[in-house]
């Protein structure tokens, strides 16, 4: 029986990663030895990310305890975070 469906990889991360294809609604997210509940406004596929908190446009987004890019839009808690609202800080096209 599944006990958590999202994983937060490090303290201070701004995103949680889906461990399965998830439906909208409440979902338990694992961080270290505790679990927090996130509310997803929309379905999220396996391996994709959702915001743990409200993220403002221009803010740096962290995963694995390190920056993975910056927000190109305001992101609501639980919302899908991907190439439509996250831009690499390394690759500048």
């Amino acid at each position, binding site marked *: *029986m*599944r*006990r*958590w*469906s999202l*994983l937060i*990889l490090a303290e201070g991360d701004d995103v949680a*990663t*889906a*461990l*399965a294809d998830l439906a909208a609604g409440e979902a338990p997210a*694992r961080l270290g030895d505790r679990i927090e509940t996130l509310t997803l406004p929309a379905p999220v*596929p*396996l*391996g*994709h*990310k959702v915001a743990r908190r409200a993220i403002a446009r221009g803010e740096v987004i962290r*995963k*694995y*305890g*390190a*920056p*993975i*890019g910056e927000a190109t839009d305001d992101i609501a808690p639980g919302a899908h*975070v*991907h*190439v439509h609202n*996250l*831009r*690499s*800080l*390394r*690759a500048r*096209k």
Partner: protein
Amino acid sequence: MAAEFAGYLRPDGSAGVRNTVLVLSILGLTGASARRIARQVPGTTLISMPYGRGQFGEDRAMTRRMLAGFACNPNAAAVLLVGADRLRLDAVAEQVAATGKPVETVALDDCHEDNLALSEQGVRAAARLVRDASRLRRQPLPASLLRLGIECGHTDATSGIAANPLVGRVADRLVDAGGAVVFGETMEWLGAEHALAGRAATPEIGAQIVAAVLTREGWAAASGEDLTGNNPGQENIRGGLSSIEEKSLGAVAKGGSRPVQGVVPHAAPLPGPGLWVMEGPAFSPPSVSGFVAAGAQLVLFTTGAGNSYADALAPTIKVTANPNTARRLGLQIDFDASALLEGTREPEEAADALFAQLLDHASGTRSWGEVLDEGEYAFARLGADF
């Protein structure tokens, strides 16, 4: 209790987790004779170098590190060197002899270019070495003698979130036990280089990590490739990866969280215990060969969709967190970590189990790659020949 395994203590104080006799052809010309020798003497492992003349500069230095490194790897109880000229054979033999383990040489020149005479001499020499090696016994040894290479191949969305962090926890356990860990694939640090540099033991080492990535990125740019332009690729993006930073952080997660002690050139010996990064190619065969030449006796190898590559000298233990892969590839995957993805297994408990299994493989339990004789090797090259 300190972690232990049952291994073969070598004269130089290193530990073998296997006890093979290495038949090493140090020149492309003698590969066929070496193959004939290895086929005729069970208990040997063949490594055959396809090049050996017309190389220069760092490319030649790297090839020589590979040859000496394979020969000195403690999984080989003894070494038979097969080559053409006495001078080169003796140069490699001297390096092996310094470890105190038995080494013999057979030279094509000494046989007046008679390849059959060469292999006949080699069969006799290899037979004696195998007989002597069979006298050696395993004994309890501390895990601090283990050197572990870490690689990933054919990754998917499950690798960066589950399999790589799991293997990273095992890497931390081995470093904490006093052992050594190495991972490489320089281009997979691209985008994570600053995070990795931040974990370096000194700022100088951090600068070397960043410089190593820029050097390879420069090589790519010089040939018209932009490594960040289409990276992550469409398949990565469908899998949920949004940036090169995220992709690379997932890749380097397999190295764990301990300080990076240094950047080691491809195939150079690991200077001591702790976590090391190796500057080298990203493709698994040459990358893993670099670790084994550096002295790694074991390899932990994470995969998403599956990857059958295994090293010839070092047991290569396959780990996946993809439930379909674990189910489909039962005779390839050594450790099924899919319960992490299914949210039913504690990450620390899974890491304890994989660490225990690693010690068990070190003590003699065969990996699937060994059972199926999948062992391979590859010599990386830099630059052109004369």
